[in-house]
C-alpha cells in the first residue's frame, strides 16, 4: 500500500514565559490510505498538537521547528499558506472535540456543511445539499432529508457531533483528524457517534487519525495505536497486539482496569442511615419538574453512586440536599432530624456535617487565596482555630492528601488539576464532615490522575468513616468505588441497591443500556453491541431523546 501521510522526526515548540520550549520531541508517523491510527495519551502528551501538525498547522504560540510532513508526495512543512489552504478541508479535514463550540449557532447545519465544498469550487450549493443528505443518512442521523435545515441548538449533542463528522466528509477527504470527538458526550451517545465514524470511514476508505485519552474507545476504531507521553512515543503497534500484549509499563497502567473496592459489610441497618431523602420533587421554574418523588438513603461509611446522563437530575438532587435549591415537595433528614429546606435557615452544625467537592477544581478554588487560607478558613469558621493551631492542622490535612508542606504558600494557579482537586478534598475534610457530596469529581481529570484521587478518597473513607454521595456518569468509576448504586433517568430513580445486585442481571432496561454502552478494551466490542441491539430491537433514542 502507498503511504498517504509520512511525518518524519517532527519537533514542535511552544512559546511560554518568554522562551520556546519543546513539546513534541521527534515523532515519526505514517498513515496509509484507509487506515485508522489511534493517538493516545494524557493531557500534555502532545497528541492534539501532532494531529494538527498533520495538516501543516500549529496553534497560536506554537511552531514546527524541524522535521518533514509529506502528504501524498507534497511537503507541507515550510510550504506556503496557499498550498496548505488548498489541502485543508478538502483533502485533510478536522473534527474538534466540542461540536457545540465549533458550529456557528446562527446558521443552519446544511449551510455550514456546504461552505467548504462551495468555497473551494468543488460543488454548487444545490449539489452540496443533495450530497449532505446522502452523508447524513450514512451517518445514521434521523430524518436525513430535513435535519440539515435545523440550527445547531435544535439537535442533540450526539447528532451535532455526527453533523460535524458529515462536514468533515463533505469534500471526501483522504484523511480526517478526529480530536477527542466523543469525550464531551454521555456513554449512550458516544456509542452512536463511534458507530457512525466507523461506518463512514469504512465506506469511503478514508484514513483517519483518532486522538483520545480513552483506550477503550480507540480500541473500537483503530487499526494501529501510538501511545504518547510528554511529546515522546511510548509504544506503537497494531491495535490488537497492543491491547493483548502491551510492552511498556505506562501502556499497561493505562490498560489496567480499576479495581479499588474491597468488600465491606453491607448489611442494611436503619440506625446507620445518616441522610434520608424522602419523596422529594424539585423544579427550577416551578412548572417543569427536574426531580420527581426521589427517595434515597445514605448510610455511615458507605459510598452511594448516583448514576445517570446529563440532564437526569443528579446535580439537582445534590443542590436539594445541600439546601441550595429548596424542594417543592418532600423532606431531607440528617441523622433523623429534618433539615430546613433552605440553606439560609440551616444551622452551622448541619452545614459542617455535609461538604461538597466539585467537578471543576479550577472554579471551585478562589484563585486569589493561598492554600493556607482555603483550607484554614473552614477550621477557623467551624472550630474557631487560630494561629499556630490552625497552621498545624492545615499541614496535617495537606499530609492526609499526600501533598508536602510547602504547598501551603501556593495559589491555585500554581497547582496542577489533580493537586487542585486534592486541595478541594482537604477543604471538605477540614470541616470533619460525615457526608461528602462529590459532583463528578474525576471527570475533568486525566485517567491516571483520576485513579489516584479515587484511591485517596477510598483510603480517607476507611480512615475516617465518612460517607460519599458520588455523582457521576462514568460507570467505570462507579464500578471501582461504590457500595450502592442509584440509577437516575429524567428526574426519577429507576433502580437502586447494593452494587452487586444492580450490576448483576436482571437489569432495568435503562441500566442495561447504560451498562452495555461502556466501551470495553475488546476491539470487537462495538460491533458486538450493535449487532446485539439490532437483534433485540433496542433503540437508544427512546431513552436518550424524549
Amino acid at each position, binding site marked *: 500500500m502507498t503511504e498517504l501521510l509520512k511525518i518524519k522526526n517532527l519537533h514542535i515548540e511552544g512559546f511560554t514565559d*518568554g522562551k520556546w520550549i519543546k513539546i513534541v520531541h521527534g515523532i515519526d508517523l505514517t498513515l496509509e490510505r484507509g487506515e485508522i491510527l489511534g493517538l493516545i495519551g494524557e493531557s500534555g502528551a502532545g497528541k492534539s498538537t501532532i494531529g494538527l501538525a498533520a495538516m501543516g498547522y500549529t496553534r497560536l504560540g506554537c511552531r514546527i521547528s524541524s522535521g518533514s510532513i509529506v502528504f501524498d508526495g507534497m511537503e507541507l512543512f515550510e510550504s506556503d499558506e496557499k498550498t496548505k489552504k488548498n489541502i485543508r478541508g478538502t483533502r485533510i479535514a478536522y473534527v474538534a472535540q466540542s461540536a457545540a463550540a465549533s458550529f456557528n449557532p446562527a446558521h443552519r447545519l446544511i449551510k455550514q456543511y456546504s461552505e467548504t465544498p462551495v468555497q473551494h469550487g468543488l460543488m454548487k450549493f444545490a449539489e452540496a445539499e443533495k450530497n449532505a443528505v446522502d452523508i447524513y443518512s450514512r451517518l445514521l442521523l434521523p430524518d436525513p432529508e430535513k435535519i440539515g435545515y435545523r440550527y445547531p441548538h435544535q439537535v442533540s449533542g450526539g447528532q451535532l457531533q455526527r453533523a460535524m463528522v458529515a462536514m468533515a466528509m463533505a469534500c471526501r477527504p483522504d484523511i480526517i483528524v478526529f480530536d477527542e470527538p466523543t469525550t464531551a458526550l454521555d456513554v449512550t451517545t458516544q456509542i452512536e457517534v463511534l458507530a457512525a465514524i466507523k461506518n463512514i470511514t469504512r465506506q469511503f476508505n478514508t484514513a483517519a487519525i483518532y486522538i483520545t485519552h480513552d483506550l477503550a474507545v480507540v480500541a473500537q476504531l483503530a487499526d494501529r495505536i501510538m501511545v504518547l507521553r510528554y511529546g515522546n512515543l511510548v509504544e506503537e503497534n497494531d491495535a490488537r497486539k497492543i491491547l493483548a500484549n502491551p510492552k511498556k509499563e505506562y501502556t499497561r497502567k493505562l490498560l489496567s482496569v480499576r479495581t479499588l473496592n474491597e468488600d465491606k459489610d453491607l448489611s442494611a441497618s436503619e440506625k446507620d442511615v445518616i441522610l434520608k431523602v424522602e419523596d422529594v420533587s424539585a423544579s427550577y421554574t416551578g412548572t417543569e419538574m427536574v426531580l420527581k418523588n426521589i427517595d434515597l438513603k445514605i448510610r455511615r461509611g458507605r459510598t452511594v453512586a448516583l448514576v445517570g446522563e446529563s440532564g437526569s437530575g443528579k446535580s439537582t438532587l445534590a443542590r436539594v440536599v445541600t439546601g*441550595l435549591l429548596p424542594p417543592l415537595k418532600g423532606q431531607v433528614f440528617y441523622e433523623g432530624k429534618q433539615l430546613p429546606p433552605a*440553606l439560609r435557615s440551616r444551622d452551622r452544625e448541619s452545614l*459542617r456535617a455535609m461538604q*461538597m467537592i466539585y467537578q471543576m477544581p479550577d*472554579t471551585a*478554588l478562589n484563585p*486569589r487565596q493561598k492554600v493556607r487560607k482555603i483550607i484554614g478558613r473552614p477550621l477557623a469558621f467551624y472550630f474557631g482555630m487560630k494561629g499556630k493551631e490552625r497552621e498545624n492542622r492545615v499541614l496535617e490535612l495537606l499530609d492526609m492528601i499526600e501533598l508536602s508542606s510547602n504547598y501551603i504558600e501556593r495559589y491555585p494557579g500554581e497547582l496542577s488539576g489533580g493537586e487542585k482537586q486534592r486541595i478541594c478534598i482537604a477543604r471538605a475534610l477540614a470541616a470533619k464532615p460525615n457526608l461528602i457530596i462529590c459532583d463528578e469529581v474525576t471527570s475533568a481529570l486525566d485517567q491516571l490522575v483520576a485513579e489516584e484521587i479515587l484511591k485517596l478518597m477510598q483510603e480517607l473513607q476507611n480512615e475516617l468513616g465518612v460517607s460519599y454521595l458520588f455523582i457521576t456518569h462514568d460507570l467505570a468509576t462507579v464500578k471501582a468505588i461504590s457500595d450502592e448504586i442509584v440509577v437516575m433517568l429524567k428526574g426519577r430513580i429507576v433502580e437502586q441497591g447494593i452494587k452487586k445486585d444492580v450490576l448483576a442481571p436482571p437489569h432495568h432496561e435503562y441500566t442495561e443500556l447504560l451498562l452495555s454502552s461502556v466501551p470495553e478494551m475488546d476491539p470487537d466490542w462495538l460491533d458486538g453491541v450493535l449487532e446485539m441491539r439490532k437483534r433485540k430491537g433496542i433503540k437508544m433514542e427512546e431513552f436518550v431523546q424524549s
Partner: protein
Amino acid sequence: MAFFKLLRKSPLTARVGLAMILLNAAAAILAPVIAPYSETEVVGDVWMPMSSEHLLGTDHIGRDLFTRLLYGARNTIAIAFVITMFSFAIGISCGFFAATLGGWIDLILSRLVDILMAIPVLIFALVVLAIVGNSIPKLVVVIALLDSTRVYRLSRAVAMDIEVMEYVEAARLRGEGTWWLMRHEILPNAMPPLVAEFGLRFCFVFLFIAALSFLGLGIQPPTADWGGMVRENSGAITFGIFTPLWPAAAIAFLTVGVNFIVDWFLHVASGLKD
C-alpha cells in the same frame, strides 16, 4: 518588592506615566518649600511675562503663576483623590451588596442609580451645589455620590460574574455571611477591573472639578486650583498671552500620566505578557 519586579519589566509608557505622577505628587507635597511666594500674595503687575523672578509670569491680579500652580496641584489632586476614594467606597459596597443579596435590594438600588444617571451629571451637580451652597466638603460629597453611580454599575456587573463561581457557592455552603463573601471571595477577584476604573475615574473627577471651577461653582478663590486658574486667566488669550495655557497643560499632563499607568495595569491584570 513584587511591585519593583513588575516595574523592571514595565514598558516605557508606564515608567513615563509613573514619573509624571511622582512629579505632580512631589510638587503638591513640597509646594510650601519650592514655591517662591505665598499662595495669595500679589507680587507684581498683571500678566507679566516669564522672567527669572516669575518663572511662568503672573496672573490676572499679579500673583506668581508658578506658585499658584504648585498650590493648585495640592488642592486639585487632593480633592480629586478624596472624591474618587469616597465614590469607590460607596459604589463598590452598594454594588457588591446588590449582587450578593439580589432580590428587592438589588432592584431598589439599581433603579435609584438609573434615576440618578438619567440626569446629566454636570447640570445635576450645578443644581445641587446651587441649592446646598458651596464649600469643599459639600463639593466632595456631591461629586462622590454622583460618581459612585458609575462605580456601582461596574462593581455590580463584575460581582455578578464572580458570584456564580463555585468557590463562592462553596463559601455559601459553609455558611459564610454576606460581608465575608464580599470581602474575601468577591473583592480580591474584582480588583483588576476596579483598579483600572479607579485610574479613569480619578481623571474624570479631576476634569469635572476643573469644569465646575471654570463655571465658578468648584473650588472658590482665592484658593488656587487648576480649573479655576484657566477660567480666571482666560481673558489673556485675547491679548496673545500664554498664561491660561500653563494650568491647562498641567491638567493634561497629569491626566496623560494617570492613563499611562492605567493602561499598564490593565495590561498586567489581563495576563497579556507582550
